[in-house]
C-alpha cells in the first residue's frame, strides 16, 4: 500500500482475514448472505469448510458464532453495520459479551456510507451501543493500513470485538504499523485545540487541520482508531495541553467517541468539549460526499466547526 492510494475497505478487510486464516485454522467466517460483499470471496474459495453461510439471520448467526467460539473457533461475522449491531444486539450483549466469547463482529458500510440507501442502512449509534457491552472492544480503523493491522489485532485479542469499516474507497494515510488496541496516534501537534477523529472522518480531519493552519490555528490532531476502551492517558494529556477538545465522528453526537471523551474529561480534566457528528435525527439520503458536506463532516465543515468552537 502506498500513501495516497485509494482502496476498497471491504476487500482490504477480507484479504486481511484470508491471509490470517492461512496461519490460524481457528478462524471461521460467518455470513448472513453477506460474505461475498464483505470481501470474503477469497476466503470462501480457499477455506470452504470454514465458511458458514446462514442466510439473512443476524440474530441466529451471532448465536451460532458464540457456540462455535465455545469450541475454540474464532468466528468473524461481517455484514452491513446496523444489522450486526442493532438487529442482533441482545445476542451481542449476552452470547458474546456476557459469555465472553471470542467472536469478531464487523460492521461494514458503517456510518452513512450507505448514503443513498436511507436511514435503515445507516449506523450512527453503533459506537454507543457496542461500547455499552462490558468487555466489548470497539474499533474504527482510519485507512486501509489500519484495516489490515486492526484485523490482525482483532483476531489476536481474546474476547469480543466490534470493528466498523466504511464503504467508499479509502485513502491510504499511514505507513504500515502495528495496531495497538486502546491507543491513539498523534498525527499533528499544536496548542490551540485538540481534534480527535476516528474511522472514516480522519481523512477529512487531516485536511481540516491543514486549512486551520493556513488561518493561523495550530491543532493537535489525534487519530483514534480504538473507540473503546479509551486511550485515557493521551486524551487527558492533550486536553491539559490545549485546553479544548473537539471530537469528530460519523456517528450521532450522543454516545459515540465524543460522548465517551466528554464522560472522561468531565471527571479527569474538565475542559470545553465539542462533539461534532450527526445530530440526533434519521439522516437524509443522498450521495456520500454530499451527506458529509451537509452534516459538516467534510474537511471544510470540520474546519468551520473548529473555528466556531474557538470563537473565531
Amino acid at each position, binding site marked *: 500500500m502506498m500513501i495516497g492510494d485509494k482502496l476498497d475497505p471491504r476487500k482490504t478487510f477480507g484479504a486481511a482475514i484470508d491471509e490470517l486464516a492461512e496461519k490460524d485454522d481457528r478462524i471461521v467466517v460467518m455470513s448472513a448472505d453477506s460474505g461475498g460483499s464483505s470481501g470474503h470471496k477469497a476466503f470462501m474459495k480457499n477455506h470452504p469448510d470454514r465458511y458458514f453461510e446462514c442466510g439473512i439471520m443476524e440474530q*441466529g*448467526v451471532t*448465536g*451460532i458464532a458464540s*457456540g462455535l467460539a465455545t*469450541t475454540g473457533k474464532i468466528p468473524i461475522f461481517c455484514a452491513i453495520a446496523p444489522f450486526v449491531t442493532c438487529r442482533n444486539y441482545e445476542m451481542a450483549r449476552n*452470547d458474546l459479551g456476557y*459469555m465472553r466469547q471470542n467472536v469478531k463482529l464487523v460492521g461494514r458500510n458503517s456510518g452513512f456510507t450507505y448514503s443513498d440507501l436511507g436511514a435503515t442502512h445507516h449506523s450512527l449509534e453503533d459506537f454507543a451501543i457496542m461500547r455499552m457491552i462490558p468487555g466489548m472492544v470497539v474499533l474504527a480503523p482510519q485507512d486501509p493500513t489500519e484495516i489490515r493491522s486492526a484485523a490482525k489485532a482483532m483476531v489476536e485479542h481474546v474476547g469480543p470485538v466490534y470493528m466498523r469499516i466504511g464503504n467508499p474507497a479509502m485513502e491510504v494515510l499511514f505507513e504500515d504499523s502495528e495496531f495497538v488496541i486502546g491507543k491513539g496516534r498523534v498525527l499533528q501537534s499544536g496548542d490551540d485545540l485538540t481534534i480527535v477523529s476516528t474511522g472514516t472522518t480522519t481523512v477529512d480531519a487531516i485536511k481540516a487541520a491543514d486549512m486551520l493552519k493556513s488561518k493561523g490555528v495550530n491543532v493537535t490532531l489525534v487519530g483514534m482508531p480504538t473507540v473503546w476502551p479509551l486511550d485515557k492517558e493521551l486524551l487527558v494529556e492533550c486536553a491539559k495541553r490545549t485546553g479544548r477538545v473537539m471530537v469528530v465522528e460519523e456517528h450521532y453526537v450522543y454516545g459515540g467517541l465524543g460522548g465517551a471523551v466528554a464522560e472522561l474529561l468531565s471527571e479527569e480534566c474538565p475542559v470545553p468539549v465539542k462533539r461534532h457528528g450527526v445530530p440526533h435525527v434519521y439522516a437524509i439520503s443522498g450521495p456520500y460526499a454530499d451527506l458529509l458536506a451537509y452534516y459538516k463532516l467534510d474537511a471544510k465543515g470540520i474546519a468551520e466547526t473548529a473555528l466556531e468552537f474557538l470563537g473565531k
Partner: protein
Amino acid sequence: MKEAELLRLELTAYRCRRNILRMIEAGHHGHFGGSFSSIDIATALYFYKMNIDPANPKMEHRDRFLLSAGHKCMTQYAVLAERGYFDKAVLDTYGSLGTKLPGHPDMYKLPGVEANTGALGHGLSIATGMALGLRGTGAKVYAIMGDGELAEGSNWEAAAAAAHHKVDNVTAFLDNNGLQISGRVTDVMSMEPIAEKFRAFGWAVREIDGNDMRQIVDALDSLPFEAGKPSMVVAHTVKGKGVSFLEDTAACHFWTPKGDELERAKAEIEAKISALETAVKEAE
C-alpha cells in the same frame, strides 16, 4: 434398559426434585414449574446419556448441555449437584447475595454450565454453533427448550440453520408443558403444530411423554433419529410434575410457597423417593 436401572434414574430424578425444593426453601421462591417438568429429561441426560466427567468439567470432546429456557436453572443446578459437580451445600445459597446460582445460569460461576442462557430464543443458535464446532470429534450437544419461548423468531433462524448445515450432533428437547406465565401456550401464542413445524424445517422429530423415563431413554438410545438431520424431541410434560397441588398450573411457573405449601411439597417428594428406593431394592 433393565428395570432396576430405569428405576434408579427415576429415583435420581426425584432426588433432583428434592434439590430444587432445597433451593426454593433457601431462596423463598423460584421458577418451579418448568424446573419440575424438565427434570426427568435433564436427569436422563446427565446420569445416562452424556459423555461428561464432573471431576473434569472442561474435558475435551465432552458432550455439552445447555438450557435455552434458562429460567429453569434449578433443573440444571439440581442435576449438576446430584452428579457431583459441586457441593450440595451450595444449593442453600440460592437467592442470596453473590450466589453462584443466579436465577439464570452463568458459565463463569458454576462448573458444568456451558452457556449464559435465559434471554429466550438464544439457546438453539448457541447449541447449533457448538455442534458445528464439535463436528468430527464425536461430541454431542443437548438443549432443553421451553414451549413458550418458541414464539421467539430467533429459534426458527437456528432451526433453519441447523437443518441446512445438516448438524446431526445436536438434539433439542422441547419441554412442552403447555403453560407459560400468562396461561396456556395455545391461548397466549399457539405454535402448534410444533412437531410438524420442526419437520418442515428439516429436523427429525419424535414425540414422547417427557416425564416417562422409559420413553426418554428410548429416545436417547435412538439418536440421531436420522443421519444428517438435527433431532427434536417434543417432550409432552406436566408443569410442576411431582407436586400434586401444583401440577399443570400456570401459577406454579414462578412459585413463592405460602403457608405449609413447601412442607406439603417436600412430603410428597420424600414419599416418592422412599417408594422408589424400595422399588429399586426389589428390582435389584
